[in-house]
């Protein structure tokens, strides 16, 4: 049974992983079917949302054209898509890594906030006189640590008290939000009369831009690098293999001598660390201040990105790109079609419903 720990030769190795079938003969046919399902799902979602727009008195074709133009028509909005994509990628990875261990991390929202708070705290602690590079590294380390520890609370509660992590991470989101509100309204508030926010980050510590002409910061690079890293760690390392064994069948993993509690703890904490980095990128890359809307809905959106991508690292990039595009395009709804911007959540939800409900041939037994 101890052979379970050795990655390549194990008999149960394939069990917890979902493999894409090879594209040959029947495989090709299946791939075509899968593609058709996905295309159908997206078309259905767009059509339904179009009908809704029509009910609200907007021409759906014009509305979609305007959304497309706004999202891809000018360099600034394309930049904006990549800027918003970075935290979504990291937030989705924060769901994907624990999911390998069979854990549901619904706490991205709170872990992102705590990451941002830690980044802000690090600059306050280190002082503004240090070189920008040192501050950025300080912020990053603080965010990683804080995100990991915040998720670690949920992991510890699961291990020592049997509290389900889906519930505890969800509840911790609201605790994190109130930590943020406390800081910006009270101890870290810049001025008692102005908007409730912290002082702006010094220029040197803001994340550098990719090129002088664009507004994209290095956040997207960090996200891409971490995506590759996560993919490699999950599929090519002993730890990644052990985690997926524990996630597939905890009992079998335990019998094979794996330290399941340690795997659970580490998977959830790594998830939290990734979300923490997302918070740091939002803070040092775009917001520069903590405000009451810091990271709003990004964690939940990222959770759905991860499900859209079926918890696989590289498809997460596509899912995050889609969600970021929708979030940029939502301003067009308001401007061009006089529809409240948040109505875009309907389209988001319809796409997800289509993907969750119709891209697999699964059906209930009646």
């Amino acid at each position, binding site marked *: 049974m101890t052979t379970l720990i050795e990655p390549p030769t194990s008999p149960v190795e394939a069990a917890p992983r979902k493999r894409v079938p090879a594209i040959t003969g029947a495989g090709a046919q299946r791939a075509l079917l899968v593609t058709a399902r996905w295309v159908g799902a997206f078309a259905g979602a767009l059509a339904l949302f179009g009908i809704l727009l029509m009910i609200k008195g907007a021409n759906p074709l014009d509305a979609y054209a305007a959304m497309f133009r706004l999202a891809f028509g000018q360099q600034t909005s394309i930049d904006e898509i990549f800027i918003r994509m970075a935290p979504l990628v990291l937030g989705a990875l924060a769901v994907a890594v624990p999911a390998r261990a069979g854990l549901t991390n619904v706490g991205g929202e709170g872990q992102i906030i705590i990451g941002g708070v830690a980044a802000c705290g690090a600059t306050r602690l280190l002082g503004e006189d240090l070189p920008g590079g040192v501050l950025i590294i300080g912020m990053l380390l603080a965010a990683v640590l804080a995100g990991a520890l915040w998720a670690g609370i949920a992991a510890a*509660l699961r291990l020592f008290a*049997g509290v389900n992590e*889906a519930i505890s991470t969800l*509840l911790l989101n609201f605790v994190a939000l109130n930590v943020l509100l406390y800081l910006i309204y009270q101890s870290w508030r810049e001025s008692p009369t102005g908007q409730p926010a912290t002082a702006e980050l010094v220029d040197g510590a803001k994340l550098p831009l990719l090129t002088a002409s664009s507004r994209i910061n290095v956040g997207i690079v960090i996200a891409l690098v971490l995506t590759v890293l996560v993919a490699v760690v999950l599929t090519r390392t002993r730890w990644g293999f052990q985690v997926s064994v524990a996630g597939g069948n905890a009992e079998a993993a335990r019998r094979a001598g794996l330290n399941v509690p340690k795997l659970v703890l580490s998977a959830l904490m790594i998830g939290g660390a990734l979300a923490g980095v997302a918070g740091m990128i939002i803070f040092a890359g775009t917001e520069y201040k903590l405000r009451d809307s810091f990271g709003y809905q990004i964690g939940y959106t990222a959770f759905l990105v991860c499900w859209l991508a079926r918890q696989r690292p590289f498809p997460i990039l596509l899912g995050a790109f889609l969600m970021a595009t929708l979030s940029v395009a939502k301003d067009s709804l308001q401007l061009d079609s006089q529809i409240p911007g948040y109505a875009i959540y309907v389209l988001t939800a319809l796409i997800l419903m289509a993907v969750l409900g119709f891209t*697999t041939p699964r059906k209930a037994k009646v």
Partner: protein
Amino acid sequence: MSLPVDVLAAGVAGGTSIMFAALGETIGERAGVINLGIEGSMLAGALGAYVVAVETGSPWTGVLVGGIAGAALAAVHAFLVVWRRANQMASGLTVLFLALGLTALFGVKYVGSGKKLDHAFDVWNVPVLHDLPVVGQILFEHNALVYLGFVTVPVVWFALFKTRIGLLVRTAGERAETLTVHGYSVPWLRTLAVTCGGFLAGIGGAYLSIGYANAWRENMIQGKGFIAVALVIFAVWSPVRVMAGAWLFGCALSLGSALQARGYEVNQFLLQALPFVLTLVVLTVIGRRTLSSSPAELKKVFENAETG
């Protein structure tokens, strides 16, 4: 009123929305389905009830429509998880996003519209009972929806534990295969349970908009649906404990304003976080026990997050 009575009375009033939602969630979870979309059902219920109450002038019609709106969203969740076997957490959050979008779309002209309902649900003191010392002030000086909540608890308990359909629903959450053997449809029973749960959550939302805040605001539920989901677990899937837990949360929510009204310096954010911390603490204390007594089919959901 003295501080404890004040806080308890406000707790009963404030906890009612959570109680409706948690009772609904209890029914769904008893059938083996966890629904984070309860938050969305409440949101839809809050808007639906407010719009109908404002437009028709009939608050009770509003409550009914709020319930139906909540049920409709829960039906979406039921369709995805029961009939298409989607992941329950992901589907629940999807339904929440659907509700956020739909209520933003249809509620925009009612935000801060200032259209107050004229005495929709006035406080009505229950004769005789409200004269009881202490208890009278805490329990019997509320509006009709709070009393409806009192009645709903035994009704849900009776329906779940004393009727045939209740037994079938609970069996769908404990030993689904038994039902299949005897020719019952587990998917339909679960759909029924989740949709009924959504109806109650919708009434919980309706209570917030037309029975408590007397207004509609975007995203006005603010996590109360999530509290309801957690509450069901720490109430060990029992309607009566759900009621007690909901009042406890109501008290935690109302403690801040009650203290501030008396001139105490309190940290508002600490108090806002209190219900969530409290839930975590309670779950920690009774965690293992609740886990072992959870409906068996629900345990499967918790243990294997990777379906879908």
